[in-house]
């Protein structure tokens, strides 16, 4: 009579079978999870951000705010129109600029510029910002997101490539103003 501690031949093979399947499943899980998370990991390694030109300085009159468009630096074949992005360019004076994302700092709807009243207004939940991007009123907790910019050889260039959201790294980089800074 085999005691309870004895391992039978069939029981051993059963356990080995489970172990073997577990091993294969783990080995397969690594590339599967790697594939699923690739949109995150790729951003960490190479970074999605790069410098894109908006146009010559002369296109942006001093003291005015104009809509500019650029093509997102990271493009895949099925993107269609979605890689074309808009931004608001404010030329303060000379080579001093402010480049704002069109995305409202509240929930990302496209804000519109009203030069007469010097306000950006959001059509979704009623956020409003002053001409320098700081919060004027409504639900946003902060001012508009700003892209880092530089002017080289008379060309305005911004660092872009990620959707600006309240938690994104670009958002933490620039344009963070205390609420009610007005």
């Amino acid at each position: 009579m085999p005691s309870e501690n004895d391992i039978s031949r069939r029981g051993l093979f059963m356990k080995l079978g489970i172990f073997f399947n577990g091993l294969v499943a783990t080995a397969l899980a690594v590339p599967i999870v790697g594939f699923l998370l690739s949109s995150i990991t790729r951003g960490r390694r190479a970074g999605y951000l790069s410098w894109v030109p908006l146009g010559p300085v002369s296109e942006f009159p001093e003291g005015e705010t104009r809509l500019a468009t650029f093509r997102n630096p990271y493009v895949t074949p099925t993107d269609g129109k979605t890689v074309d992005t808009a931004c608001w360019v404010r030329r303060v004076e000379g080579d001093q600029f402010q480049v704002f994302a069109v995305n409202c700092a509240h929930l990302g709807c496209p804000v519109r510029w009203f030069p007469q009243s010097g306000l950006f207004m959001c059509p979704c939940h009623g956020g409003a910002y002053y001409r320098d991007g700081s919060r004027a009123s409504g639900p946003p907790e902060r001012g508009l997101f700003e892209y880092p910019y530089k002017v080289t050889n008379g060309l305005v260039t911004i660092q872009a490539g990620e959707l600006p959201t309240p938690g994104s790294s670009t958002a933490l980089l620039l344009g963070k103003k205390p609420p009610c800074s007005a």
Partner: protein
Amino acid sequence: MLRLAQIGAQVGEWFDRRLQLAAPIRAVAEHPVPRNTASWWYVFGSAALTVFMLQLVTGILLALIYVPSAGEAWSSLQALNHDVTLGWFIRALHGWGSNFMVGIVLIHMVQVFLFGAYKFPRELTWIVGVFLLLLTLGMAFSGQVLRFDQDAYWGLGIGASIASRVPILGPAIVKLMLGGPIIAGATLSRFFALHVFVIPGMLIAFVAVHLLMVIKLGINEWPMPGRVVKRATYVNEYHELTKRSGAPFVPYAVWKDMFFAAFVLLAVAACAVYFGPFGPSGMPDPTVIQTAPKPDYFFLWLYGLLSYLPPSMETPALLIGPVVAIGFLVLLPFLSGEGEKSWRRRPIAVLTVLLIAIILGTLTHLAGYTPWSPHMNAWSGDPVPDKFLRGTTALERQGALVFQSKQCRNCHSLGDLGGQRGPALDTVAVRLTQDQLIRQVIQGGGNMPAYGKNLSPAETTALVAFLQTLHPAGQTPARNAARDIVLDNQDRRPDPQRQ
């Protein structure tokens, strides 16, 4: 004829010998249900299942034409609407089907809640039902994304903005949700996978478990006031009830389900024919910013809520609110698994349902005309009504011009036209004195931007002069009595500088 029937029976027998399904199917169909559950109140679950099947069929039909590519989805929807024979009708059926499904699932949930059907031993049926509701809402949102137009594009932006507020993991969740750094091709592809494979697969599995439990545990009996659920005795009591006064589900109760299911399908088809398909609205081109994105009707309440939450409460409410709400729904059968089932003895349950319905209804109604948003074209589109300009001075008319050209009108209405973000100004002169008007215009406050930097002193003077004319005839504008006294004294007192 008789011979045909004989052949039919033989073929049936041949299959059943191999499948052995006839007996279990008959057992399910004829299982006894309490006589009083054959009620029109018990038809919403089967109606939801019917609409779900309609969605499966019409969804597969749409997939024959639809292209899940950010570059081509919009054009393929246009082709469905205008080129493919009856493509518009299938799109309309699918769109209206989704509206009906969300509505019927919610009604089913309210009925189950008010009839105490979530109590012992049907706790798990309720919990699976909660997940079915969440999956249905997931289908609704992902379906809205597949209608890849401006609303879908900016709606994704709103979803990403909400997700990004999760502490630490936010940016990673956004990239996982979008399939990359921006809303683009990969985003649509993964929402297609969610809408067509992942969520429907889970829905089918959960519906199967849900139905299995309904059959195994029996349908909830009609709640009678005073008949209290006790863990120790309920199962026996239920069996006695079905034995004593039960009737076979088919055909005793099922005909009402069938009638209602057919009626719902007819209603969906009628809406589809009469109202047509939803959208698509403008092309999903992010450089076209002249758009006011709005979610479909089942998320309008959320759109309204997000406008009214104070900024400081928003992130906690967005992140903690859903966890609390879902947690409460899941825990409900454990918090009140026994006791009264009848809504007549559960006033708090009835009031809770009414309160939630009123809140959701009000927010949905408000989201229909978004009083919190500036009217982007009011300053150029809605002229100052004549009656406000009659008998005014040149300065006051100049003020009316400033009022329009500085877009005050986008947030303030006159004669019921214009934005509703700020108060209507038809009688503002009665509420605010001249000094208060000047201060409010220049410094803003109370959710109004400061206009000090955008108005010259002359413009401010003109604007305030106009605003002071805005009072009902026969009612004098507000004035600061102290100011009059001070000004009077100044007039009387000789000016020291002139001497």
